């Protein structure tokens, strides 16, 4: 049983930020939760799914973020507290619905939790979801530590209910994926009945119809809700100040930057000189509260990730209040004290404060820093990202690369988001030439495939994961078939949402709660759409390569090639070797003409290691997963595979 549902009020636990949010939602009595996996948000729905049965919560991994938000909204409309969670990109996907939902309002408390990824630690963007709150005019909360993540999540439901409006609770990687101590509150005893009341007066928020029209009326309502939120935020305990009454410098911050700022002040020993205003309610800003603290000093530094959201909003308020509070000097993104790109850390804040106050600070003695730098430069080979040992993607991209090189007509691959995004790098033989959002490789390919009339004659491939196929790949495929575009869509089907930890998707027979559900057969769907469909095992390199070459010769319509092989990290495969791999050192050609280390120089599976002394390849038995693919790329037959099905202890 998960500790997240320990009914142990007052007990202290070590929780990951995402788990804290979940505990807060549980304490609020959440009943409906939906999301789409994406780092760093995945543990929210994941953890809820594990307690869904015991706590009587409907939890689903939806097909995409927009649908997730719609599913959660239905819960709210029917009187159930609901939550939807997603990474920052997901808010873009859901934003069409979000705009309209903000217009219609909600009923039972509804919270959207976007987890932003400043520094793009596991993303291909560092997009900001906070601007959506301002854009669609809904309240925004940002927890500043782990306890607050729980408490604020609980409060967000209450706030939403009070306002009849969706509330955004924004987290970041260093909050979601960091852990700290959290004291548990009480779990509610729930007894709810779901009903959607819609027979009342049409404009009645609780019994009328749920829509954003008539726009002038609803929009006015929406802004009144925002004004109410502003009032509530004036006295909110999540906005705190720590520091002297008249600080030399006032730092205004939110989210994980609170912890960085607090540590920076501590490191520099400036508790008596620098004040820290930590805001938990960052949109709309409470003007009276801001006025009080802005009046304390003339120098204000704003510390936040990533874009100057707070900075802009505080400056607007400061400009309006200037006749009363005087002219202020601001430090932050705009003057370059705090970088506008990437994530922050205590050192960046230390340096910004030190620079502003003219303090000399060195994190390390020069001598030590130089020595450490020198040793590291000489002795730490960098670690480039690569596919895991035994990853089907390495095999798939091997065949894709070879097919395109053989074909010789400058073919290329359009990719999107998943582990296979790594195919931009040498681990995927640098095959991907475009990568944007979920499903966009196929959409872009659909466009390229219509350029023949302009002399375009390069073969086009798109790659898309199985989960991504359902997310947005399918709509791109529909578009392509309907418009008679000409390209080959390769669906890299590894039977799960592998990158984020094997969440189920509509192609699988089980849902988030572990119930058996109807699965949707990708192959049948593609066929029904009118595409020519082939299915291959990517571990059969030659057959896969041949098929790709045949498909890209096809000058008509859309082809779909499904490369089906389970992820090497999947629970089914992990720890089980299909083959025991060995090297015949007598036969290994090494660096000689005839091979020149094709396995370690080009294929680069981490399970294969070049032994410089003996000038042969070795198998690293700890790392090798025994997939057997490397045996088929060895030109000399020196890599041997023998069948075993061995379970590691």
């Amino acid at each position: 049983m998960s500790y997240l549902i320990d009914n142990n009020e007052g007990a202290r636990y070590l929780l990951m930020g995402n788990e804290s949010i979940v505990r807060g939602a549980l304490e609020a009595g959440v009943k409906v939760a939906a999301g789409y996996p994406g780092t760093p948000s995945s543990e929210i729905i994941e953890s809820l799914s594990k307690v869904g049965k015991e706590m009587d919560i409907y939890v689903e991994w939806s097909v995409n973020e927009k649908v997730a938000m719609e599913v959660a909204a239905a819960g709210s409309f029917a009187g159930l507290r609901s939550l939807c969670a997603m990474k920052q990109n997901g808010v873009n996907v859901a934003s069409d619905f979000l705009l309209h939902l903000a217009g219609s309002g909600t009923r039972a408390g509804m919270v959207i939790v976007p987890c932003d990824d400043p520094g793009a630690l596991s993303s291909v963007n560092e997009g900001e979801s906070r601007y959506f709150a301002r854009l669609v005019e809904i309240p925004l909360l940002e927890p500043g530590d782990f306890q607050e993540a729980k408490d604020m999540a609980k409060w967000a439901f209450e706030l939403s209910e009070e306002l009849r409006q969706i509330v955004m609770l924004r987290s970041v990687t260093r909050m979601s994926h960091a852990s700290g101590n959290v004291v548990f509150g009480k779990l509610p005893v729930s007894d709810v009945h779901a009903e959607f009341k819609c027979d009342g007066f049409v404009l009645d928020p609780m019994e009328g119809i749920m829509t954003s029209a008539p726009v002038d009326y609803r929009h006015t309502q929406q802004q009144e809700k925002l004004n109410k939120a502003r009032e509530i935020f004036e006295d909110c305990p999540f906005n705190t100040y720590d520091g002297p009454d008249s600080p030399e410098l006032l730092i205004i911050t939110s989210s994980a930057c609170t912890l960085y700022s607090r540590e920076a002040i501590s490191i520099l020993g400036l508790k008596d000189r620098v004040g820290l205003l930590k805001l938990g309610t960052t949109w709309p800003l409470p003007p009276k509260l801001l006025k009080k603290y802005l009046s304390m000093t003339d120098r204000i530094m704003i510390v936040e990730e990533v874009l100057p959201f707070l900075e802009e909003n505080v400056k607007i308020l400061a400009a309006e209040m200037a006749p009363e509070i005087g002219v202020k000097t601001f430090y932050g993104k705009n003057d370059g004290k705090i970088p506008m790109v990437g994530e922050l850390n205590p050192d960046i804040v230390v340096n910004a404060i030190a620079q502003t106050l003219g303090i000399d600070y060195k994190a390390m003695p020069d001598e030590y820093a130089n020595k450490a730098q020198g040793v590291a430069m000489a002795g730490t080979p960098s670690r480039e990202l690569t596919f895991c040992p035994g990853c089907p993607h390495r095999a798939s991209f091997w065949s894709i690369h070879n097919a395109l090189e053989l074909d010789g007509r400058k073919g290329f691959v359009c990719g999107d988001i998943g582990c296979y995004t790594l195919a931009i790098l040498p681990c995927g033989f640098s095959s991907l030439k475009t990568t944007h959002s979920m499903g966009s490789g196929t959409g872009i390919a659909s466009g390229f495939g219509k350029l023949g009339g302009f002399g375009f004659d390069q073969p086009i491939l798109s790659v898309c994961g199985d989960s991504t196929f359902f997310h947005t790949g399918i709509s791109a495929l529909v578009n392509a078939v309907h418009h008679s575009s000409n390209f080959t869509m390769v669906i890299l089907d590894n039977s799960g949402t592998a990158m984020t930890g094997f969440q189920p998707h509509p192609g699988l027979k089980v849902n988030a709660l572990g119930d058996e559900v109807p699965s949707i057969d990708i192959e049948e769907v593609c066929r029904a759409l009118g595409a020519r469909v082939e299915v291959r095992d990517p571990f059969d390199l030659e057959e896969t390569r041949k098929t790709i070459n045949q498909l890209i010769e096809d000058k008509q319509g859309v082809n779909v090639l499904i490369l089906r092989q389970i992820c090497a990290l999947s629970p089914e495969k992990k720890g089980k070797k299909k083959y025991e791999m060995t090297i015949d050192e007598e036969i290994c050609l090494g660096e000689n003409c005839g091979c020149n280390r094709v396995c370690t120089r080009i294929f680069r599976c981490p399970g294969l290691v070049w032994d410089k002394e003996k000038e042969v390849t070795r198998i690293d038995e700890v790392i090798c997963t025994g997939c057997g693919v490397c045996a088929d790329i060895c030109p000399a037959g020196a890599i041997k595979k023998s069948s075993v099905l061995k379970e590691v202890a």
Partner: protein
Amino acid sequence: MGNIQLSKDPYNIIITGVGGQGNVMASRVLANMLVKKGYCVTIGESFGASQRGGSVMSHLRVSRSSIWSPQIPRGRADVVIALEPVEAIRVLKDYGNPEVKILSNTRAISPVGVIAGELDYPSMEEIKKSVKELASDVWFIDATDEGLRLGNPILGNIIMLGALSGVGVLPMDREGFKGVISRSIPEDKIDINLKAYDMGEQMVRV
């Protein structure tokens, strides 16, 4: 071992290694052991893309009274547990100081660039020399190899935790370890984990 007082507050621990080594698991177990002793612990870690062959670090801040930034400031590590030896050096470059203690596994995991013959991996002697130059106390143990001998290389992490206990800088003990793992691993695996923990403790005492 269980009643050692921390020499600093916050006491900063870095567990470093390579994606797939079980870094996150090790930091979880250690942090929970310390929480059970009444400490506030903050862990900062990054996973996601870094799992795929990249360096992975967990930052643990241990304090009597409060939580701290999930990222340790530069130059402020107190003890570094390196599940992979060159990662120890990489960490020292950013977080080292003359007083830092290093506990390192000896099993190298070659970066792809080394596998590909494009980069050089330093010899164990070179690594040991570099680490000794940059730290006050240094222990190198063959944790993965011993783990393999016990039947699973991943037990190397538990051996490292046992060794950390043996080093005597943190309030850790066997009972605390047992209490924490009992909640997260199947019952039939507990004995072998305890054996690995004991083994690690012994290895640094010799």
